[in-house]
Every structure is written in C-alpha cells, then in structure tokens.
C-alpha cells in the first residue's frame, strides 16, 4: 500500500500543507503539528508544498504494468456527422501534430462512420499522417457499443502510445468506456497537452474544482495514455492540400446484435449555432428582469451571428431551456467573445465560461464578481445598454 505520514520532528507547524491540500484533508493538532485526515486521497500535493521535507510519501511501485516500449504513435478520434468531420477533430489534429513531432512519431486519425472519402482527405489536409477508416452502413451515426468495440479492436491490433478524443458528448462517453475495457488511464477535459522532454510521457493538464485549481496528470505505467480534450481550446492547423497521408482500411469485425439502438436523432437548435460551437455567445441572467426581455439577448446574438446562453438562475426560473445554461451544471464554453448581460458571475457560472477569449460584462452592481474576469465592463442597466449596443452593431453589420 502507498502511505503518507507526517514526520513530527521536521514539521514546524507552518500550515503550508493545509493550504496546498485540495481535499481539505490536513489539520493542525493542538501541539502545532500537521495531521492527515481520513479523506486524504494520496494525491501528494502537500509533499511538494512542504518546505521542510516533513511529509513522507511512499508511492506504490506498480507491478502489473505493461511493456510501454511496445506502444507507438499518436491517435486522435475524428468525430464526424453525416460524413463531415466535426471541428473538434481538427482541433485534436492541431495539438496531435505538435505532440507527434515532439515525440518523433506519426499522427493517426481514427475515423468511424459511413461514406468517408471526403472526410479522409480533409483530415490529411489538416495534419494527419494516416487516416484509419472503418466504414459500414450501421456506423453512420455514433453508437456507444459498436464504436467502442471497433476502437478497441484497432487499439489491440496497433498499440498506439497516445489516444486523444474530444471532451464532447460522444468523446466523454466513448473514452471512459474504452479505457475501462483495456484498463488504462484517462484524463478528462484537458486544456494543455505536452510531451515530457525527459521521458516522452504525456503531460496532461486539466482544470479541477470548477477551474480554481489546475492539475497535471500522467499515466506512467499503462498504455495507451488517453485524454479527452476540451472543445475550443486547441488550435486547428491551416488546411494544406499539398499535405500527403496514407488511408488505411483495417480489417475489423463490425458488431451485430447490439444492446444499444439509436432510434431517433432530434436537433432542437435550428435557428442558431450550438452553444459549444459558437464563436460568440450572448448570455442573459437574472438582471434581465423578465423572460420577455430575453428577446434583446436573442436579437444581439442574431446580429453578431452568435448563440444564446443563460445563467442557472434564469433556467431554474423557467425563463429559458436548460440546453442554454452555461456553467458548472450546464455547458462549458470557450468562445472568442462572451457577453454576460445581467449575470453577477457566481463561481459556478465562471467555471463554465472563464476560458473565453474576450469577456464583456454588463451589470448594475459595480462589485459583481463577473467584472473580475471581464475584459470590458459596463456598469449600468442591461435593459438600457442592450438596445444601444444592438443599434451600434446594426449600424456596422447591417
């Protein structure tokens, strides 16, 4: 068993470890020595925080690890819809390209679906050295069961070193299912990926505690190293039609007699861009005063070609549908421009949008926490400001 203990002789009672513990599992005893509580998860954050080497941390040597030298190549899962790669696929190729170059290896896009000739070409233009494509009529739409089955066949046949997927609805369902079947590590929602220059391991950095803490995670003894990557964080490459790549059609068994069937696919967002795909989001909060006033939010979003977001308070009050909710219990977004109109900026809301490039806050209360993350702020009444902004943008954009 791994173990952690305080070396009382060295502990000076400085409390640094208490601040460093993300789990609140440290306390001071009456004689001013640190005490580790039962809810310690052995994460080791206190060990690096202690300046006096007063915490003895014995990590377990893992014995059932695999021969990691047998694994090679960076893979990305290229999500597609009706044969067209989703933007997340290109973002994964963007970061995957850097990783593959740093690791001196190839970048492979795994593409599962039906009628994918065009998609293969596009993936090569955007950075893939190889596209591994599996086509079948039954694979046209994403299915957890068949996609897992096929992906695992490909992994077992080819032993990739790294697999990246989008932290999308499908990616966040497929990746853990695969990782659980092949018993490897998976890091969710990464916002930064690097190759450790010393040992070639994948350094996976992700937000935790609603973005208040960043954690860098490794998967030292298991392969492949798997991660899901947050949408709209990684940059795609410019498409280059001179790039060449190989298209491989591996032999796989297409699973039949599935326990899961997708009966119907319904799109409810017809007039606007989906929230997670939008480059511009205009969000409304309690400060809008009345559900009717969301018409102004809609109007501004429409002029700017953006999507409509909302705070939890307005969704809970039934002003707008849940699918518009931004924040910890709603969607996580990272557009180029985010308008927070009459949103005070509770920590849970900030967790869902603080990675936006430019944040505009309009709020009556100059002390609203939203102004702390805002690039541009207006202290004022949204009901007065929104029509003025609509007028300004209309004048330029028509």
């Amino acid at each position, binding site marked *: 068993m*791994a173990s952690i203990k305080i070396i009382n002789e060295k502990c000076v009672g400085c409390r640094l470890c*208490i601040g460093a513990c993300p789990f*609140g599992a440290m306390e001071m005893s009456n004689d001013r020595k640190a005490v580790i509580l039962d809810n310690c998860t052995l994460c080791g954050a206190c060990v690096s925080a202690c300046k006096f080497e007063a915490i003895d941390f014995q990590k377990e040597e893992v014995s059932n690890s695999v021969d990691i030298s047998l694994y090679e190549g960076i893979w990305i899962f290229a999500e597609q819809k009706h044969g067209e790669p989703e933007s997340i696929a290109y973002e994964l190729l963007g970061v995957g390209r850097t990783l593959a170059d740093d690791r001196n290896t190839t970048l492979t896009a795994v593409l599962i679906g039906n009628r994918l000739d065009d998609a293969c070409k596009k993936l090569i233009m955007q950075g893939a050295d190889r596209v591994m494509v599996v086509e079948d009529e039954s694979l046209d739409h994403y299915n957890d069961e068949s996609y897992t089955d096929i992906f695992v066949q490909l992994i077992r046949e080819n032993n990739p070193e790294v697999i990246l997927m989008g932290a999308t609805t499908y990616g966040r369902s497929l990746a853990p299912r695969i990782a659980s079947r092949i018993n490897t590590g998976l890091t969710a929602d990464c916002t930064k990926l690097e190759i450790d220059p010393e040992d070639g391991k994948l350094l996976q950095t992700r937000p935790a505690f609603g973005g208040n803490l960043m954690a860098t995670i490794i998967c030292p003894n298991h392969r492949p190293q798997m991660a899901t990557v947050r949408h709209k964080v990684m940059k795609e490459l410019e498409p280059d039609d001179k790039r060449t790549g190989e298209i491989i059609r591996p032999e796989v068994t297409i699973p039949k007699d599935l326990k899961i069937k997708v009966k119907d696919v319904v799109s409810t967002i017809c007039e606007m861009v989906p929230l997670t795909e939008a480059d511009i989001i205009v969000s409304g909060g309690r400060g809008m005063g009345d559900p009717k006033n969301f018409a102004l939010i809609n109007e501004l979003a429409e002029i700017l070609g953006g999507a409509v977001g909302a705070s939890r308070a307005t969704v809970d009050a039934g002003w707008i549908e849940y699918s518009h909710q931004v924040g*910890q219990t709603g969607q996580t977004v990272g557009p180029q421009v985010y308008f927070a109109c009459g949103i005070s900026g509770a920590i849970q809301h900030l967790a869902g949008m603080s990675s936006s490039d430019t944040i505009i806050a309009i709020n009556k209360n100059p002390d609203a926490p939203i102004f702390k993350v805002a690039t541009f702020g207006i202290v004022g009444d949204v009901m007065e400001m929104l029509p003025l902004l609509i007028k300004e943008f209309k004048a330029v954009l028509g």
Partner: protein
Amino acid sequence: MNVIVCVKQVPGTNEVKMNKETNTIIREGIEAIINPFDTYAVEEGVRIKEQTSGKATVISMGIPSVVDLLKETIAVGIDDAVLLSDRAFAGADSLATSYALSMGIKHIGEYDLIICGKQAMDGDTAQVGPGLAEKLNIPHTTYVRKIEEIREGYIRCQRMTEDGYEVIEMLLPAVITVVKEINEPRLPSLKGMMRSKKAQITVWTTDDIGADKSLCGLKGSPTQVVKTFVPIHDVKSEMMEGTPEEQASKLAKKLLSMQFAICQEEES
C-alpha cells in the same frame, strides 16, 4: 424493478474561496454534500422504484462520515444504502472507482438499472458511469434527460447532445447518467426523515466485496497527479466610461477593431 444509484460526496462548492496571500483554495470548514447531479439520479431511482414497485439502493465509496449523507437519500425514498469504505480505496482515479463500485454492485445482487449523475462537481470527469458499465459488461447511455419508457429488460430514453437529443433504446440491465433536466428532486418527507434517523447503513471493505486490492485506490489507478497549481487569471479589466450611449459606442468600436469573428461574419 431494482435500481441502484451511485452517489459521491463532494465539498459544497458555494464556499470555494481563495486565500489571496498563499493563492490556494481555502477548504477548511467546508461542509460535505451529495454531488448535486447525483440528487437527480436519486430522485429518478426513487420514481422508477415507486412506479414499478421495486427497490432502490444507493451505493457510494468514501470516508466513514459519508454514512450521514447516505441517510439523507433514505429520507427522500431510497430503501437501502451501502458505503464502500476502506483505506485501500483511497486515492482512486476513475478506473479504480469504476472497479470498486462494480464489485460493490455485484455484491448487492440483482439489479435492472444503475443511475449515476452526469459528473461530480469536484472532479468533473464524467468517467465513472461509462467505466462502471464496462466493468459490469452492460450497456450505458450518458446525459439522459428523460426516460420515455422502462419495463422488464428494456429502456427507451433521451440523451442530450450538443444540438438536441437522441432517442436511445437499451436492453436492461444498463447504466444511465442523468442531467438535471430529468426531474426536480423532492424534499424529504416527515416519514422519510423518521426512517432515515433509524436507518442502518451497510459499510463494506474490500474484503467484504471480494475486491482485488491491487485494482483499488491509488494502487489500481493508472493516472497520477504530478502537480497542482492555481491558474493565474491575469485579466486587465477595462471599464467603459461616459453616458450609456458613449459606453455602447466605445464598446462596439473596441470589439469591431479586434478583428475576430464579428468582422469575419460580415465578410462571409
């Protein structure tokens, strides 16, 4: 119909505060709560049990004090609660957690449906539901916003997607993870609270459920945290000044001059 609901203890996030001097999260004196997403899972479990006259059991993995939180679920209609608690479970990542829960669930016995919340508020990974389904070798569907029909061996539900929803059929037993749109959790009834006070929560160790210790906790976790740090939000806020008209005009000019999507939109 027998339903098992998985819940997790998380810190009550409303009170996450930063210590400005040391730049760390202040976590002292923060009460523990049931992961908010899991309360929808509990409610859905109770509803299915009531409709099908079956049994609803919650299971959790955590420190001994989680027993008190599990009692809260009994107050809202859960029949039985099980806590997996053992030093050997500590430090588990999502794979080791999936394994431990799967062993606990096998030990509970027959079940038709397992319900998890969409994700936990502290880790936000959303990985345990699908990982658990795989360990039990049963199908799963994530982000369920509505159960359209459930009967012996069959479920039809709606899964929320980025631009709408899908209608998915599965053979039971299966795992679903639910979003908050699925229901509105009830408040505890007086009768429920009385029952919860008297309730005995079962606590099982690794040995009780026959779990392989090398697959549990830190030892069974392929991933390791090597570094944690507080992100620097270096935002230089610029406040617009002047009359409302002037402020609107200034802001529009700023945005239009930044040459991003707004301008591209115009060209295309």
